[in-house]
């Protein structure tokens, strides 16, 4: 079932007198429990599309519909609220908060999302999530003592601890070696299915593409192929 629709989205940047159209009317929909991979050459517009879909920047034209509401027409505070409660993010680098332990990273996300869970329920949920990403043995560790793969696992746990509807991931394996890349890819796919989340992943990684349920290839601001 489609829970997220991108409808005729365009993005134009103005540089002096030159107007550059980065997205030229893109249409896309995401299904629950599915990983959709966005791929394409550098500059094809895939990262711009992801950030517009995630409410991190506005489209010049078109609609981004989530749960019946158009994100592009909302006030920034409303978009922030949706980002905090309904979206999860994984970036190329883990971007963990350096002064928080692994479990505190997840606790922060529960706070930010406005979770109604009480203290004990939060603890249980965090333990469960860390077990799921196989990081339960490092829950009191700080990011400086984690490896790249471990950091990315924690980042994934942080992205889904509040049970978002959509997971946005921008090159989540780009900073990892092939072994860790494979682990993280499998983890995203498994969690997406297990938690019935729709995932939109920007990637160049062949491994990641092989795990995706749907592959969308972009070129010059347009979708050129859907697999």
């Amino acid at each position: 079932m489609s829970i997220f629709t991108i409808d005729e989205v365009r993005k134009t940047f103005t540089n002096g007198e030159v107007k550059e159209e980065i997205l030229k009317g893109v249409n896309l929909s995401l299904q629950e429990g599915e990983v959709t991979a966005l791929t394409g050459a550098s500059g094809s517009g895939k990262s711009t599309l992801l950030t517009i879909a995630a409410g991190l920047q506005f489209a010049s034209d078109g609609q981004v519909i989530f749960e019946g509401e158009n994100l592009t027409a909302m006030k920034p505070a409303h978009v922030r609220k949706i980002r905090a409660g309904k979206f999860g993010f994984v970036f190329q680098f883990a971007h963990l908060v350096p002064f928080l332990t692994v479990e505190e990273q997840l606790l922060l996300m529960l706070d930010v999302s406005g979770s109604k869970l009480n203290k004990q329920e939060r603890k249980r949920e965090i333990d469960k999530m860390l077990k799921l990403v196989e990081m339960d043995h490092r829950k009191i560790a700080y990011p400086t003592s984690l490896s790249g793969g471990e950091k990315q696992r924690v980042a994934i746990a942080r992205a889904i601890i509040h049970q978002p509807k959509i997971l946005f991931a921008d090159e989540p394996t780009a900073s990892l070696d092939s072994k860790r890349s494979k682990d993280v890819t499998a983890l995203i796919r498994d969690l997406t299915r297990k938690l019935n989340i729709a995932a939109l992943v920007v990637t160049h990684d062949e491994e990641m593409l092989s795990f995706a349920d749907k592959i969308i290839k972009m070129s010059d601001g347009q979708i050129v192929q859907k697999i």
Partner: protein
Amino acid sequence: MNMAWKEMKRNKGRFLILGSIVFLVSFLTFMISGLANGLSEDNAGLIKDLPEGHFYMTKEANKTYNLSRIDNNTQNDIFAKHRNAFALSIQMGFLNNHDGKQQSVAFVTSTQSKWFQHVKKGEVILDRSVEDNGIKIGDTLTNKQSGGKLVVKGFVHHSKYSHAPVAYINMDDYKEMFRTSDMQLMYIPGEAKAPTFTGLQAFSKDQFLNTIASYKAEQMSLNMIIWFLIVISGMLFAIFFHMMNVQKMGLYGILKAIGVKTSSLFRMMWTQMAVITVIALVLSIALSEVFNHLAPKGVPFQLTFEITFQLSIVFLIIGFIGSTLSGLQIKKVQPLQAIQQGEM
């Protein structure tokens, strides 16, 4: 979750350095304020302890009370209209004990008033500080200027003028010593608006204090140092948080991306500023109090609760302004930029 506290716990060294500097600056400010207040009491305690009201001196005196001469007729005119008014004169001079040892004093005499001491002719009441020089009740002191003798009838606390102990004398003795029947000043307590009198110029208490040259110069220099230190502490906060924020721009961007409110990031910074300032202030107040008790008797140190409280509030406000100014960068951080940057 209290992110502010977690960051401080994790980066103890960094915050300890800022806290130490704020502590030193605030301690220095409290010390100088204590000295400024002590010197102010030492210089003009006699005037400062009077209730709110207005001083009068002749216009010809040109704001120099020593040159003011208010005759009996003018005094009587004022007494007729303002029953609680009184006339007073202050003159610096010396008293010698039986060994010939000289004691610098400020001779003060006044018409009937409840705020000044009154003695019979040939008697004197002195500020208690003269006891340190061996002067006791019953001693006979000599004024070499007039050759008159004054018997010590008692002592009072905190009655100083121009860094000298006050000597309350009878008006007849005063007239004899300084060969004048006029008084220098009139004082009308309690009037919000100064009544006007022909030939006289009115001064509020603060205005009058500022006509005392040594008082003005002393207090201005010390207050300048105090405000300079307060501004430095504000700048310290601004610079420290600016540097911290520059380092954390990426982090703020990511936090914004995952949905953290900008106001939460500001609250985090304000909490850190408040914790550092409060701890630094508590320590510096405690240390100032210790100094207050241990300071040698000759050091005019007086730090009141009122001054401590006011300065603490000023420090908190300055810290708030400093950190907020530096925090304006947080508002500008775009999540997108942070995501496109590398690992923090």
